[in-house]
């Protein structure tokens, strides 16, 4: 197995990771950045097909060591240039699957070759995933995530003339609607679950952020012909073999849309698996479980830092600022970290207002019917899951979340659907001593704990048996807290 050492290892090459890498390198550290995607920039700075890397480049980590940033997203390109000037090494197409120690991480590339990365400091910038909420018909072909649709269009999927309904919550709906219009799509409507009043309050708070105000004004001008519904969400998607009609509840009315595609965005979920595997504490947050960090973005593990969405969904500006704080602080440049921290705090205030305005309303917990499939990998219905007292029981008894995605899709959905659900009227309260409360056959109250309470175990992603054999048999690098290597070292085992 190939073994690589550096001072600072950054996991994730999105805005937070790129900024962290540049900052750490400017602080004098040897830095390696890993990302599972072939391109730099993460989900938000994803390059358009015309400018994307050639697919063949993405499979070899050696080739990816110098990604063609000329083809990257404009802002990713700028950060890449800045980082590369300081000698940062980029390894794309690298998926992390285990961290046997907090200074020793294992990754596998698309060709199935494993690498071990040893670093004194690790900065986690693992981003976020889309949250899907199940409703009748959500598994029909043609129903997808808003982010996923945007990625596919950037990857070359044609949407010209396609009737597309966007549903869910947040400014992402507007941004992607404008993007789709630019690509010739017919956006038939936007169903925003937040109330008009909440969105208006958020809008008026934008005076504090003039650049956001300008962006918003541009968006609304671009979207003036698109019907924008508030207090609205999809209740059913129907069609033969693929989605054809979507029923939307809007206030007290019901509206039907004929569509070719339905793109949903019910917010983002912090990706915290790696942090939790490494033993970093998490805390509850409106976005779900987030990684707990101090003002320097340091986690509860002293050599592990975290920046961007895993510490709370906040968007690109907050991610960049957090990345800078983490990168500078991890390299001991606390003065510069302090300046970046002020920028971060402003961005966080904006993110918090955004969170409040677009918080998912409890009514959405009623979206799935008994027959709605919640776990797509194992075809488990809401009725089957609801009958279980805990998520762990749901997994054991129904196989929910046990399929190839290992709960990455249904987990966040269930965390929302089951969070603090008020007991239904007439439901027996579970007490420990009442012998009359037979709990075997039904639990009307549904699962009572979130998905994320479960222990994270390696491998984080499915990994071939042979890779795990190689990774487990190689001795761990003898990584004493010795003077940092000045540049990254590569040893082939």
């Amino acid at each position, binding site marked *: 197995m190939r073994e690589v050492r550096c001072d600072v290892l950054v996991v994730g090459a999105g805005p937070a990771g790129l900024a962290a890498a540049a900052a750490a390198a400017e602080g004098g550290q040897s830095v390696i950045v890993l990302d599972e995607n072939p391109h730099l920039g993460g989900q938000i700075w994803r390059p358009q097909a015309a400018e994307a890397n050639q697919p063949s480049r993405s499979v070899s980590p050696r080739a990816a060591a110098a990604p063609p940033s000329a083809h990257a997203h404009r802002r990713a390109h700028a950060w890449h240039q800045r980082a590369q000037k300081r000698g940062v090494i980029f390894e794309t197409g690298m998926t992390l699957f285990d961290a046997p120690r907090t200074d020793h991480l294992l990754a596998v590339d698309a060709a199935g070759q494993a690498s071990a990365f040893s670093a004194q400091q690790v900065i986690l910038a693992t981003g976020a995933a889309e949250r899907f909420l199940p409703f009748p018909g959500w598994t029909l072909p043609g129903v997808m995530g808003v982010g996923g649709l945007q990625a596919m269009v950037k990857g070359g999927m044609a949407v010209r003339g396609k009737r597309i309904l966007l549903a869910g919550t947040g400014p992402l709906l507007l941004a992607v609607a404008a993007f789709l219009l630019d690509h010739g799509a017919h956006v038939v409507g936007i169903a925003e679950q937040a109330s008009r009043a909440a969105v208006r309050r958020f809008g008026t708070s934008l005076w504090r952020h003039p650049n956001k105000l300008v962006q918003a004004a541009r968006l609304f001008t671009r979207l003036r012909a698109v019907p924008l519904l508030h207090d609205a969400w999809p209740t059913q998607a129907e069609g033969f073999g693929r989605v054809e009609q979507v029923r939307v509840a809007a206030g007290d009315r019901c509206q039907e849309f004929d569509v070719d595609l339905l793109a949903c965005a019910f917010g983002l979920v912090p990706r915290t698996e790696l942090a939790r595997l490494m033993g970093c504490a998490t805390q509850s947050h409106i976005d779900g479980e987030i990684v707990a960090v101090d003002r320097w973005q340091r986690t509860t593990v002293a050599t592990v830092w975290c920046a961007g969405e895993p510490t709370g969904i906040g968007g690109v500006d907050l991610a960049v600022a957090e990345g800078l704080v983490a990168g500078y602080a991890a390299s001991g440049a606390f003065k510069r970290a302090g300046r970046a921290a002020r920028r971060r705090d402003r961005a966080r205030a904006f993110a918090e207002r955004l969170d409040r305005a677009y918080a998912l309303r409890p009514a959405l917990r009623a979206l799935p019917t008994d027959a709605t499939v919640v776990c797509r990998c194992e075809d488990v219905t809401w009725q089957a899951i609801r009958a279980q007292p805990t998520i762990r029981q749901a997994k054991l008894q129904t196989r929910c979340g046990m399929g190839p995605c290992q709960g990455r899709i249904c987990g966040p959905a269930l965390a929302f659907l089951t969070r603090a659900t008020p007991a239904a009227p007439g439901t027996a309260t579970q007490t420990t001593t009442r*012998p009359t409360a037979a709990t075997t056959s039904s639990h009307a109250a549904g699962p009572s704990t979130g998905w994320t309470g479960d222990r994270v175990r390696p*491998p984080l992603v499915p*990994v071939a048996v042979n890779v795990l054999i190689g990774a487990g048999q190689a001795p761990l690098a003898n990584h004493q807290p010795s003077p940092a290597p000045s540049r990254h070292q590569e040893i082939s085992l």
Partner: protein
Amino acid sequence: MKQFDAIVVGGGIVGAACAEALAHVGGTVRLLERGHIAGGATAAGMGHVLVLDDSDAQLALTRIGRSLWTERWSHLPPAVERDACGTIWVAADEAELEAASRRATAYAAHGIEAELLDAEALYGHEPRLRRGLAGGLRIPGDRVLYPPTATRHLLDRAVAAGAVILERTPVQRAGNGHVDLADGNRFEADLVVIAAGLATPMLVDVPGLVIRPKKGHLSITARCPGLLRHQLIELGYLTSAHGDEAASVAFNLQPRATGQILIGSSRQLDDNEPHVDQGIVARMLARATEYLPALGNVPIVRTWTGFRPATPDHLPVIGPVPGAPRLWLAAGHEGFGIATALGTARLLVDQWLDRQPTIDPRPFRVERLSATHRATACVPRGAPECAAVPDQDSPPSPFAA
């Protein structure tokens, strides 16, 4: 039918089987589980229903256990994922084939169907095994099920017979005919059965009762149907399973109804931490690919650990606590709780009702572990039955050889 109250402590598969059996012979049963049912060793296990002949007693218990599962096999609901796939014990060389042949003879003597396979026959059954193996022993009557749903099924039957299941109900202590709950309440009953696995010694005062955790790892693959048809185990398994080595691995593969493959197995005696040990997993997977090279490219989607509750002589304790005739144990099944749950329940109920037991109960008695402590055995207060301490020099058994 005799009427009595019974409390079963522990909602794993053994407790569920006991609750079901007691409810069906007229018991008014309450089952108390500290967490949720089938959440401990039951959830972590493979669900292999097999006969094993490590000792005569083990053979007797696994045999009755398997035949009780077989009797109800066609009535198990689909969620139990039953698969009568059989086992093949794989012999790597001539010496192991010799051992297989001896085992075939022993099984035949007990009426257990067993087919000795030469190399050609082995590859006929399992063409993906690596070349150069000597043969194997096929046990067609062995089977596989999914333990959490099997436990649920047993409990559903218990509830249908009037049992009450109390989850999230931790027990602090158990005595002769009563249990003290963690919340301070006391439940009383004619019979208390402790089926709490590793926690059992903490609940009862039985000097000499030792149940140690034996940590195991299991990995499950993505769906790759067709790689194997039988549960496959290396013949050296028992050597590895009961050896004194601190950590051992053995080749043990199971085809699941879902098309996935469950890969085992490992044993570690002095590791009480639930973390996944990379090195052990790598050894376990390497052992698996030694026998089934095609497995190397299959993705592992999940790895987990569990703790087998092991007694010093590898046999469970089934029967009354000396000096406390209303306090019984059904614990310490190590890796065979799924296979022997129904057999355990049968043995327990037979003795409770003073029926002729189907198998010799003596090797499973609690006092075999605590005999030296007889004089000091604690008799719970307020237990008049303590006058009726069962005679430990048992009468001649019809099963005595």
